[in-house]
């Protein structure tokens, strides 16, 4: 049985540890100062794809990412872990996309690839919306199953999947073509494989080849799998109005840096006098008691 999987992965700034130097004076995060990483839950998504490939001989995993040219880094990263090929959708016309415009662009690319299954992460750690998965599914007019923890059974036309909900679990059966989003409670991705690093370390997009000083022509001809496809708006048959800023109904009106408001606090230590004082204060002011 042949089974084609598209994994959606986003390159994100590592927002989990934003230091002071990563904030600009105007309160915006200076993305350039944060390391760019593979969105964590998208690694969980990739692992689900790899597990399907472990079970089905003829499964193919394609990584799809939308972002600036350097986002090709995460496509290589995915190849080192077992993805077969990658597509980068990149164009200045995508700038300023909200989730709706992002999903529209991604859905056009997925349509060209015609997979049985699309696997996304639940949420990206920069935009933090968890909206792109469901919106891509809607644009493709296919069903969605969100917060997947495990794929229990796979057939060409049907999947059985376990979902992780806030207060429980659900097992569902869903028809393909299907989009699932993967929750962080699912296993994270297996590490890079030395053989695959050797195989794919020269994988490049067309834009990257232009920058290379070395001549890749022969290598690319002999090893076509090293080519990372790059698609622009022109390749996607897109309605340009529905992309980027003009295709985004949400606008960011204002962005503020989070700062803790400093209070004048009363400082105490663990001695009996301080503790006695504190508890008396709380009781007398009717906060407790």
């Amino acid at each position, binding site marked *: 049985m042949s089974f084609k999987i598209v994994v959606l992965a986003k390159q994100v700034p590592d927002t989990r540890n934003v230091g002071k130097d990563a904030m600009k004076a105007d309160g915006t995060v200076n993305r350039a100062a944060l390391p760019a990483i593979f969105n964590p839950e998208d690694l969980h998504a990739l692992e689900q794809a790899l597990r399907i490939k472990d079970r089905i001989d003829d499964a193919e995993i394609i990584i799809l990412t939308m972002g600036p040219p350097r986002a090709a880094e995460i496509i290589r990263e995915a190849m080192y872990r077992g993805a077969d090929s990658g597509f980068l959708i990149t164009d200045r016309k995508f700038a300023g996309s909200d989730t709706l415009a992002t999903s529209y662009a991604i859905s056009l690319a997925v349509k060209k690839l015609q997979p049985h299954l699309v696997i996304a992460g639940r949420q990206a750690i920069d935009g*933090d919306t*968890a909206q*792109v998965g469901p919106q891509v599914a809607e644009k493709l007019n296919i069903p969605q199953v*969100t*917060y997947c923890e495990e794929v229990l059974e796979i057939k060409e036309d049907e999947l059985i999947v376990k979902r992780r909900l806030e207060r429980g679990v659900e*097992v*569902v059966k869903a028809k393909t073509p299907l989009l699932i989003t993967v929750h962080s409670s699912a296993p994270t991705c297996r590490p890079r494989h030395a053989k695959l690093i050797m195989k794919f370390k020269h994988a490049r997009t067309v834009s990257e080849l232009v920058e290379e000083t070395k001549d890749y022509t022969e290598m690319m001809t002999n090893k076509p799998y090293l080519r990372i496809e790059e698609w622009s708006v022109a390749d996607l048959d897109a309605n340009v109005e529905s992309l980027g800023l003009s295709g985004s109904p949400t606008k960011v009106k204002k962005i503020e840096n989070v700062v803790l408001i400093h209070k004048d606090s009363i400082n105490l230590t663990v001695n009996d006098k301080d503790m006695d004082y*504190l508890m008396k204060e709380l009781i007398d002011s009717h906060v407790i008691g």
Partner: protein
Amino acid sequence: MNNSIFVYCEIEDGQVVEVSLELLTKGRKLANEIDRKLEAVVIGHNLAGIEKQIFPYGVDVIHIADNSRLYPYLTLPHAEIIAKLFEQEQPEVALFGATSVGRDLAPRVASKLKCGLTADCTSLVFGDHTENKTGKEYKNLLYQIRPAFGGNIIATIINPDTRPQMATVREGVMKKEVFNSTHKGEIKYINVDTILNDNHMAVEIIERHIEKQKVNIKNSQIIISGGYGVGSKENFDLLYELADMLGGEVGASRAAVDAGFVDHARQVGQTGVTVRPKLYIACGISGAVQHTAGMNESAKIISINNDPKAPINQIADYVITGNVEDVIPKMIKFYKKNTK
């Protein structure tokens, strides 16, 4: 124009969930501000009498879709019914709980209607806006305020030109308040059979285990929260002891939950619950923005930390520098002494 404020009411086990009631409360206020109606949408099965839970929040119209295919929640039929309803009713604003259900449903609906959706809002207020380029002026746009970038920034998002203005909000962020316990509105039934077809049933639930919410710290006036600095599950017993004595609940930071000291239901913060008690005692919690986002509106804050420079101390009314395991027994001791 008479476009209303809509709230999607999520049903679990015949009950409207907490966050939906919180959103109805917020929805009523928003509706009053711009002189519109508040309307609720309920989709499920065996919903007879459900209006009794909803009208007290000041709802003018309830739209009910009651059909055996509609409970438990499934994305496609719910999304289809709501999209059709919104096309017909043209809401000004539509609010959804940022729950497993709401975060699955709202983006699908927004995509169908090609309208904007803002995730996990912490505040919703009306305000005016002038478009920079065109000079076009907008009155009473919904400012949808939300944290992003892992809680490091707060963004104000607007949807100038598309309707409804859609937003999701987490449980505990808005306050729940009955508007008038005898308030009655109108009920409208949605004809489900004319909307759904077999394609909407492409996903089938085989098994489902949902636990009842065991603890709900959100409504507690006193919260004793423990962080990674509490050190162990056993040390958390001290916090339970103090909480029992003061009539409070035990909360936690994510690091304490991740370490297995306590249950996720007790997590306070951006990805847990938002609380605003009379008293919040933070024990061994450093004060990451994702944590303080869920508790910085507490009336009084006490921080117990052995690091005098812990960021949480900046927002505390009382800072006790010391070890949790030394401080709490003393608090218990002197509480007893002073209440005798």
